[in-house]
């Protein structure tokens, strides 16, 4: 049972966005002041992180209640007064934001120093919008009032827009940012409408009050609509197919912006669902929607990822797939695993983007590696068969959520398959690695239960089977692609996978037709020939 207490101490959490806001408005003057602004910003960001970590430790050891609420001493209608919420989820998210924010700010400072594409003043603008984004995101995380949460999320997206268009002379940057702008505004409308419906239904916009009165058995159509809207918002915010194009194309902004987006902002769809967990758990339609969108995206994006030709774009498709996986976990009510995934993916992706320049070393190492013999089809069949048996066992025994556990079984199977194809010496190592991976995973999963409880609901067996089959299909493709012969069989599939199944092209085409962005003028080719103006194409 979640126990909630009102504590003025919770207002300390509001210090986090306030500090970032302070950093964002730091006065900027001559060069000396600009250098000082960076140093002060980093000091403030470091301070935030220290305080959050200390607060987390204190909370873990000596918290009086699971959830601390800070309220204003006013009695507003419908509980519209802003309030803050301090619980394990808030603390985990604040620690994540504080840490990633500090690392990326520290990186950006030197990365952009002497940037030939911007000025010193431009870099200050960057620093300010970056801090403003962090302020909005952390406001959203601590919000206990439904509308404040929605507004903070919208504001974060608007601040981020300034970072995405940092190089405003690049048409592709503006096009991608424009697509994101449209999708985010759609999501904002969904969230605010959904929140309003919820608030009106329960007669209060205070989250704690709403969650306390949720009754799974009495789920009205209004709530179904509201939760579905929120699920849709999460799907849009997490860049699920076919609304993923902007996420892939924001490589038109400096690397640390990509890192912030992929490690921080895009996760917020997942956070939204985890935050609304008490409401979402009984919402069957919303849950189903998340599972369907998540599974489709995870499988297709993971497949498309393997055909990408550049490192950052591959990382972006990977994010898209990972977000899909997180939404599956959300849809299955495994909020603890979803939070684990959110945190783990953030650290992982921030590091991957920031160190994307190491790709050359990685690829040279690959070129130096003596060629693997590869495993024959029979071997893959055996590995796959063994995996299938284990998964079947999970289903029969009904252990946990077999749909999710099946994924790790398939992962281990592919690891062993690859290692066996690279020589016997590696098989032992790979087996040890497989055990380590499974143990680590189980350890994190059980630790996460202490942090955020999973919902009591259980997804239908049909859903579990569908998820398992989708990932099994991915495994089969993977095994086929391990050999040139298998790849030949999949040749007809390649152009379509390579084209991302044209989902983004359709979306972009519609955008250009319905609501085109204003792109920077590009020099037209002038020729000595007389210019003839007429309509060349529709």
């Amino acid at each position: 049972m979640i126990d909630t207490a009102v504590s003025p101490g919770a207002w300390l959490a509001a210090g986090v966005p306030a500090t970032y806001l302070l950093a964002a408005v730091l006065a900027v003057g001559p060069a000396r002041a600009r250098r000082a602004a960076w140093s002060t910003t980093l000091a403030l960001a470091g301070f935030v992180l220290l305080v959050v970590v200390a607060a987390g430790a204190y909370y873990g050891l000596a918290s009086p209640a699971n959830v601390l609420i800070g309220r204003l001493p006013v009695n507003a209608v419908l509980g519209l007064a802003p309030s803050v919420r301090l619980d394990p989820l808030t603390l985990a998210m604040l620690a994540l934001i504080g840490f990633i924010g500090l690392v990326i700010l520290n990186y950006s400072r030197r990365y952009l120093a002497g940037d030939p594409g911007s000025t010193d003043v431009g870099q200050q603008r960057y620093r300010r919008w970056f801090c403003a984004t962090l302020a909005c995101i952390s406001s959203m995380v601590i919000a206990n009032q439904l509308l404040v949460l929605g507004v903070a999320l919208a504001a974060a997206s608007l601040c981020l827009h300034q970072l995405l268009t940092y190089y405003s002379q690049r048409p592709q940057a503006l096009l991608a940012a424009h697509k994101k702008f449209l999708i985010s505004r759609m999501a904002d409308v969904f969230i605010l409408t959904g929140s309003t419906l919820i608030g009106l239904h329960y007669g209060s916009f205070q989250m704690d009050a709403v969650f306390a009165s949720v009754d799974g058995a009495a789920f009205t159509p209004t709530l179904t609509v509201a939760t579905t809207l929120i699920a849709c918002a999460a799907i849009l915010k997490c860049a699920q197919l076919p609304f993923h194009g902007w996420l892939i194309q924001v490589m038109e902004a400096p690397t640390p912006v990509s890192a912030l987006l992929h490690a921080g902002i895009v996760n917020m769809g997942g956070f939204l669902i985890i935050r609304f967990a008490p409401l979402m758990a009984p919402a069957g339609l919303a849950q189903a929607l998340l599972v369907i969108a998540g599974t489709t995206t995870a499988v297709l994006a993971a497949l498309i990822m393997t055909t990408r030709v550049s490192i950052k774009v591959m990382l972006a498709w990977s994010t898209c797939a990972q977000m899909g996986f997180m939404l599956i976990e959300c849809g299955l009510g495994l909020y603890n695993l979803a939070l684990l995934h959110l945190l783990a993916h953030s650290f992982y992706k921030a590091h991957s983007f920031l160190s994307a320049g190491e790709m050359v070393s990685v690829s040279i190492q690959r070129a130096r590696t003596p060629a693997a013999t590869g495993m024959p089809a029979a071997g893959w069949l055996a590995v796959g068969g063994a995996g299938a048996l284990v998964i079947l066992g999970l289903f029969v025994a009904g252990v946990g959520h077999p749909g999710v556990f099946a994924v790790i079984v398939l992962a281990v199977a592919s690891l062993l398959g690859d290692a066996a194809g690279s020589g016997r010496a590696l098989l032992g190592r790979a087996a040890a690695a497989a055990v380590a991976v499974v143990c680590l995973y189980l350890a994190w999963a059980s630790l996460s239960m202490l942090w955020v409880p999973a919902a009591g609901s259980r997804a239908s067996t049909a859903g579990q089977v569908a998820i398992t089959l989708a990932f099994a299909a991915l495994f089969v493709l993977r095994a086929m692609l391990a050999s040139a012969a298998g790849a030949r069989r999949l040749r007809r599939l390649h152009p379509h996978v390579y084209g991302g199944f044209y989902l983004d092209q359709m979306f972009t085409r519609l955008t250009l037709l319905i609501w085109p962005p204003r792109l920077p003028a590009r020099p037209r080719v002038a020729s000595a020939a007389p210019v003839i103006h007429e309509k060349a194409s529709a």
Partner: protein
Amino acid sequence: MNAQTQESRPAAASPESITTAVTAACAQIAPAWPLDQSVAVNPLWPLRNLPIAHAAARLAARGGVRLLPSRAEFRRYFQQGRITRENLAAAGREAVPECTVENLIAHLDRPPATARLPLVADQIDRARNLTRRTAWTEEIVHQVSQLCAAEFDLGQGDWPRTDAAGLYAAWRYNVGRDRGVAILMGRLGLARHFRALPPSADELIQTALGGMGVPAESMPAYLHALLLSVNGWASWCAYRSWQANLHGAQDATLRELLAIRLAWDWVLYSAVADETTRCAWRHALTQSAALEAGHERDQAQDWLWQRALELGYERKLVHDLKAPHAEIPAAPRARVQLAFCIDVRSEVFRRALEAEAPGVETLGFAGFFGVPMAYQPFGTDLAQPQLPGLLAPAMTAIERGDDGRDGPRLASVQNRLGSADVARRFRWGNTSTFSYVEATGLLYAVKLVRNGLLQRPSTHATNGKRPADSARLKPELRLDGAPLPLEAKVALAAGILRGLSLTRGFAPLVVLTGHASQASNNPQQSALDCGACGGHSGEVNARIAAALLNEATVRAGLRAERIDIPGDTRFIPALHNTTTDDVRLFDLAALDAEGATRIDALRGWLDGARNRTNLERAARLAPRARTAAAARQALDRRARDWSQLRPEWGLAGNASLIVAQRSRTRGLDLAGRAFLHDYDERQDPDHAVLEQIMTAPMLVSQWINLQYYASTVDNRVYGSGNKTLHNVVGGHIGVFEGNGGDLRIGLSLQSLRDGEQWVHEPLRLAVFIQAGADAIAAVIARHETLRDLVDHHWLAIYRIGKAQEPIHRYRAGRWLAVGSP
């Protein structure tokens, strides 16, 4: 047929003339090396048979390229006093006597000509509103570029390629099925047209050129313009063809790329353009020669400004070289001789070292030390060239342990490499990536702390070796798999010493110093490494050369060649870290006590020189570091910092090559702008070494010089743009700037510009040679390449005489005395 129609619709070209035009167009693209060995390339090398002004006009007319600094930039130089009125007057006098300074200044107010030959895609885009939609040209480049990256992939993707039928066939297969561009541009019928394209590249070229009625005289310009619109990938294909040629083979990929780009134009011509657009385009085609002539007229005075900019630098250098500062007191024997690479970064360090230790002599030589080899790290599958890009490796350096434990070592190295690869596949595999992230993602927080907050770099042992292995392994030369025979060794050793002009007067310690840069997370690091070693560290070459020169049998053989190395002389290999200016010495195991003492003294001098160099370099990299200790700390930090896009300035500023004895330049502050190659005419009676220097190191310097020049004056075409947007393509082929677009070649803006202005001054190389006038002229006359470069103003050659004698410039077969400022 009357004359009127003949002019508007000329007869189609013959198949033979088409083939010739295609070959000629392909021959105008210079190669671009991959990121792991990014040798500096002069991207205008294939145009050297044209006067530079003509080449510039041609590129402007065909690709919208500008081969000169902008007029605003010239104005800035003028206002800052970098170009003086005297420079302008002198530049004017050299070319057109009637040209006045006032005329030249007024010229800067005129807007430059921008007209160029349109492709069909350009012609269609002209009538479209590009502020509201994407351009055909952009989408075509993107589509071609993505396809090329997938086809040439060197380690990004995991989807194996299945057909070896060539680039064009792969493209045709893909474009006939891929609906992406058709949907995006709202032209769903395009795939039908693509599927109807001829199956081979050659057929396509014939059909398309015939179908569009491209007249024979416009064909070279049009085909070249097509290639320039995908110049990055064209350069990559040219690299494949360059490599094939080095090994005596052929590669037609560039022709296939041309066919692909032409196919796009043809499909647009037949399926998208209407009759008016086609007419306008056909008319524009006929204007190509006029366009070129127009650009040449327009840029004529810009070239005088460019010359004035160069004169500003050269005049001062001429003055300094005429009056040598310090003739070396004829010391009986130098205590140490150190040979460095000719690289301009060595100049700073050599000057510092000589100031630190007057008893030390330094020499300049191409950093691969004349060993034409590839290097294959122990237990790996990849041998990479360790020599200038103009040459093919003749030998291979392999590694062998000195402890007889190579068997287990091989297993360990291959195991580590194999495990890393399996781990990579687990991380990126489509089924396993989810579990990888959930199981290990949280641990990346530790990595973020290490790399991001503590500034510890990731350590990649990309060759699978542990440090203990590296200490035990020694490089060894192999010729066709067998150790080098003695005669070959002696010949190689004699070549090295003669090239160094070091055949007598050996010091007890001779240090052969290769160089390498140090950076973290930098895809273009190899551009900062030793270009003479194929964009790698010069360590292996130095170790191989030193070991060779220490061999007793080799020395005995050298005596027969009248090179007598004293018994107490030791060659020591070393590596100069150009980022931190630390110098590491190798292979010191077998030194006696006296040798060890000498090494101790040397280490002290090197450290002092490092302090001086650190301070000098910090002025531009860390201006707030005012003490040597602070400068060292700042530079060390930059080298380890994963967020540092500009660990060092590389060869920015390079402007001259001086081929002379060091005594001529010792004591001069050349500001890290001069390549220095030692040459002593007295040791080279038949001028064979001079010829070698002018045909190898001089060309390497010119390649570097023009790479910097071209990347500066037109970074869009010959540079790789902003590093903050770099996105590594195809494992280690190259980079995109942002999402996609063309492959980017050349140097990034961060290597050339600080936040406010260009740090590199684009100057054509000025070569100063201390040798007889007739000898230099004879070498130029013997080599067509040199005649092209000199007569067409791609570089300038000056002759240094005896001290106080005037310096002469070579112009059209004559030597003209150069006045001092």
